[in-house]
C-alpha cells in the first residue's frame, strides 16, 4: 500500500506502541494491568490511572501477524469449540498462557527455519535467482522464517533457571501483541456482544482475577429509554466502587473529566478523519481506517490519541490540496465495507479491489466509534450505541448515512463467521441498502481472525460480481444524464 508514511500515521502508530509498552513497564514494576473489551467505558479506568490492554485489538494484531490459526487451534485444544468467535479463541488461548513461538533446536539454541517461508532471492538487477540444482527460484535467506509452534508460559515458568528457560522465553514471538502482559483484572462491557460476557468470565476463572462488568442490554428502539440509562448509571457507580477497592484509590473526578474530554476530542477527530472519505476521489484508502481503529480502541481517553488524529487530519488536508491519496491506484468505484476485515487475509482482500479500482470509502466503525457526549447520562447513551447493541433501524440509518455522505456505488458485506450478532441481520440490511439507495450489494464468507473460514475464490467472484453491477449502474446513470 502507501510507501511513504505520513506524520499522522506515524503518530497514531506510536500511540498504540506506547500503550503496550507502558503496560509492559507497569507490569514489570508490579503495578496492576487490566484487560478490557473494546467498548468498555475506558473513562472509568483512566480516572484511576490504570494500564489497560484490549484483547480484541490484540487478537486482530495476532491474526494480522498470521498467528490467528495456530492460536485458535490452541484454544480448541483447551476445549473451546471452533464455532466460537476467533478473537475470543485467540484471547482465551493467550489468557491460558499459550504463546506463538519460534521453533527451537534446544541443542544448538537456533531457530528451525521453515523451508517454505521467505521471498525469492533477487540479483542486483532485480531478477529472480534460479537454483541450478532444483531449477526453482532460490529463497532470500533474510526473509525466511522459523516454524511457528505453541509454547506455554506456565510450563516455561516451571522450568529450573537455566539455558532452556531463557531460550524458550526468548523464542516467544517479539511483536507487541504476543508480549502483552497477563491481566490482574478484567473490564467487560457486553454492548459489543454477549459472547464477551462468557469470554471474560472464562479469563477471570483462568487467571483467578476480579471481573468488572457493565451490562448493556440489547436495544429494540433507536432511542435509549430512561430505564436503560438508570440501569447502566447504577452499574457505573458499582464499577467505580469495585475499582476503588481494586486500586485502593479514591475515584478522581478531575482525571475522569479529563479522560472524558479526551475521549470526546478523539471521537470528534476520528469523525473528521473519517469524513475525508467524502471527497471524491478520496485522499486515503478506507482500509487505513481499520488500522487507525486501534487508537480509538486502545487510547481514546488519552490526549496523545486525540492529538495524533489531528495530525492525520492535517496530512489528509495536505493530500486534498496536492490531489494525492494513500490509495495506491486510481479510484474508479467507491464501496462500503461492511463488518470487521479478515485480518489474516488483508492482502487477499485488497487485491481484487486494487485490480478493479475499488476504494473502500465507508466503514461502519466511523459512526460506531465517533460518539460525543456532554454529561454522564449522555455518556451512558453513547455506550449503548455499539454496532451489535442497536436495533436494525439504527444500524441501517448509520450505514445509509455514511453510504450517502461518502458517495458509495456498492456495498461489500463480510459474513463474519466469528460474529453472529453482527452477521445476524445483514441479509435484511442488504435488501434495505438496495431498496433505499439503489446500490448493489455482494456478500462473502470470511472470518475476522481464523483464516480457515475465508474462501478466496468465492471472495474474488463476489467482488467481480459487485464490480459488474456497479459498472452497469454507472452506465445506466451516464445514459440518463445524457
Amino acid at each position, binding site marked *: 500500500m502507501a510507501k511513504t508514511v505520513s506524520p499522522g500515521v506515524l503518530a497514531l502508530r506510536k500511540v498504540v506502541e506506547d500503550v503496550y509498552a507502558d503496560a509492559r513497564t507497569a507490569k514489570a514494576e508490579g503495578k496492576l494491568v487490566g484487560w478490557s473489551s473494546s467498548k468498555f467505558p475506558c473513562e472509568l479506568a483512566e480516572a484511576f490511572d490504570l494500564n489497560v490492554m484490549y484483547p480484541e485489538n490484540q487478537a486482530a494484531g495476532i491474526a494480522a501477524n498470521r498467528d490467528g490459526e495456530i492460536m485458535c487451534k490452541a484454544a480448541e485444544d*483447551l*476445549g*473451546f*469449540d471452533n*464455532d*466460537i*468467535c476467533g478473537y*475470543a479463541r485467540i484471547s482465551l488461548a493467550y489468557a491460558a498462557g499459550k504463546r506463538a513461538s519460534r521453533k527451537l533446536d534446544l541443542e544448538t539454541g537456533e531457530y528451525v527455519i521453515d523451508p517454505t517461508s521467505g521471498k525469492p532471492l533477487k540479483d542486483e538487477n532485480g531478477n529472480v535467482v534460479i537454483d541450478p540444482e532444483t531449477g526453482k527460484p532460490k529463497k532470500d535467506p533474510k526473509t525466511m522464517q522459523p516454524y511457528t509452534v505453541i509454547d506455554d508460559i506456565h510450563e516455561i515458568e516451571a522450568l529450573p533457571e537455566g539455558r532452556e528457560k531463557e531460550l524458550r522465553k526468548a523464542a516467544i514471538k517479539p511483536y507487541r501483541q504476543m508480549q502483552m502482559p497477563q491481566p490482574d483484572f478484567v473490564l467487560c462491557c*457486553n454492548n459489543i*456482544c*454477549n*459472547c464477551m*460476557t*462468557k*469470554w*471474560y*468470565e*472464562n479469563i*477471570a*476463572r483462568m487467571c*483467578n*482475577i*476480579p*471481573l468488572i*462488568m457493565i*451490562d448493556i*442490554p*440489547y*436495544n*429494540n428502539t433507536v432511542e435509549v*429509554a430512561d*430505564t*436503560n440509562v*438508570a*440501569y447502566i448509571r*447504577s*452499574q457505573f457507580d*458499582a464499577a467505580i466502587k469495585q475499582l476503588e477497592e481494586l486500586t485502593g484509590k479514591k475515584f478522581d473526578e478531575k482525571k475522569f473529566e479529563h479522560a472524558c474530554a479526551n475521549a470526546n476530542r478523539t471521537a470528534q477527530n476520528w469523525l473528521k478523519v473519517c469524513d475525508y472519505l467524502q471527497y471524491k476521489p478520496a485522499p486515503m484508502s478506507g482500509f487505513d481506517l481499520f488500522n487507525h481503529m486501534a487508537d480509538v480502541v486502545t487510547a481514546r481517553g488519552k490526549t496523545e490519541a486525540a492529538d495524533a488524529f489531528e495530525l492525520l487530519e492535517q496530512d489528509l488536508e495536505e493530500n486534498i490540496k496536492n490531489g494525492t491519496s494513500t490509495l495506491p491506484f486510481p479510484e474508479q468505484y467507491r464501496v462500503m465495507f461492511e463488518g470487521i476485515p479478515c485480518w489474516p487475509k488483508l492482502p487477499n482482500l485488497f487485491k481484487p479491489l486494487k485490480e478493479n479500482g475499488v476504494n473502500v470509502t465507508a466503514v461502519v466503525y466511523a459512526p460506531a466509534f465517533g460518539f460525543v457526549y456532554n454529561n454522564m447520562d449522555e455518556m451512558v447513551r453513547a455506550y449503548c450505541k455499539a454496532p*451489535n*447493541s442497536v*436495533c*436494525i433501524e439504527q444500524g441501517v440509518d448509520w450505514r445509509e448515512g455514511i453510504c450517502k455522505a461518502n458517495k458509495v456505488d456498492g456495498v461489500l458485506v463480510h*459474513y463474519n*463467521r466469528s460474529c*453472529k*450478532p453482527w*452477521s*445476524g*441481520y*445483514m*441479509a*435484511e440490511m442488504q435488501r434495505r441498502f438496495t431498496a433505499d439507495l439503489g446500490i448493489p450489494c455482494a456478500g462473502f*464468507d470470511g472470518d475476522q481472525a481464523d483464516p480457515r473460514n475465508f474462501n478466496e475464490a468465492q471472495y474474488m467472484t463476489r467482488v467481480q460480481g459487485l464490480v459488474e453491477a456497479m459498472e452497469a449502474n454507472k452506465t445506466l446513470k451516464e445514459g440518463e444524464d445524457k
Partner: protein
Amino acid sequence: MSTEILLNEFKEISEHPYKVLSQYKQEGKKVIGVLPYFAPVELVVAAGMVPMGIWGSNKKTIALAKEYCATFYCTIAQLALEMLLDGTMDQLDGIITPTICDTLRPMSQNIRVAMSEKLPCIFLAHPQYRKPAFGLQFTVDQYTHVKKELEKISGTAITDEALREAIKVMNRSRAARRAFVKLASDHCDVITAVKRSAVLRAAWFMEPVVFAEKLEALNAELAQLPVADWKGKKIVTSGIICDNPKLLQIFDDNQIAIAADDVAQESRSFRVDASEEGDPMMALAQQFADQDYEILLYDEHSSQNRRGEFVANLVKKSGAQGLVLFMQQFCDPEEMEYPYLKKALDEAGVPHIKLGVDQQMRDFGQANTAIQAFAEVL
C-alpha cells in the same frame, strides 16, 4: 386415568403442537408464542391467554429462513423463524422475543421485520445484573413493557390478583415437573427417555393448569409403583434441548435411563419458582434473579467454577454414572462453558461425552455408536 393413557396424551401433544394450537383457536383463545429463554409466561397466563413455547422443530427443514440467516446460526432459532415464515404459526396472536444470546439479538429484529404485517412482536431484553436492586428494577421495567404489550393483545388489564394467581399456576406446573423428573428416574422402567421427554416437552404447548393437573395425576400413578429394579445405566443429560424422539430412542434401546437433566428446555426452565406473596412483578423479577448455574447468565463469582461444579454434583446426587452433553451446533454460550464443565466433571470423576447435534439432523448413526460405546465404559 392409567399411566399409559396419560403418557399417550402427553406424547400426542408433544408431537403435534400445531393441532393443539388450532384447538385453542377454535375454542376462541388467544395464544402467545414464547421464544427461549426465561420469558415471564406468568404474564401471558394472567392476561387470560395461552403461552406456547417455540423451540424450533425436529421435523422441518430450513428454507425460507435462509432469506434472513447465514448458515452458521443455531437451528432452533432458524427453525422458529421458518415456522413463522411458512405459516405454521399464523394462528398466534403475538410472540415474545427474548434476546439473551447473540443469536437471539439479531433474530429479534429479523422476526419483527418478517412479522411486521402478521404478528405483534414483544421485545424482551433481560439484564445480566439480576440480583442488585438496580437489576431487579430493570427486570421489572422490561416485564412492564411485556405486560403492556400483552394487555394490548388481550384487550384486558392484567391485575395484580390475576398475576398472583398465574404465579401460583406456574409454580404448580414447575413443582409437578420437578417431582416428575425425580419419579421418572425412580421409575425409569416405565418412563423411558422418549416418554420422559414427551411429558416435559408437552408443558410448552399445554395450558398450564391443564398440564399441571394431568402431570400431578401421572405423578400420583407413578408414586404407587414399585421403584424400578434397573439393571441398565443411568446418565444425566445436558444441553439446550434434547427432545428428538429418534435420538432419545438410542437411550431406550441401550438400557440407558435419564436420572436428571441440565437441559435448558427441561429442568433449567423449571428450577426456580416465583414468590406468591408481595408485589407480583417484583416476584417475577426476583425469580429471574434467582436463576443460577446458567450458561446464558452472568455469574458474579466468575472466578469460581460454580456451574461446572453444580452440574458435576447433580450427576453424583442423581445416582447417574455419567453425563451426556448434547452440544447444540453454533451455540456460543454452551460452547464457551464447556472447558470448565469438563474440568469439573473430570475432577469429580464423572465420565461424559459431548455429542454435536442440531435440529436438522435426521441420521443418528454416529450418536448411536458414541452412546453405545459410552454406556459400555460406564
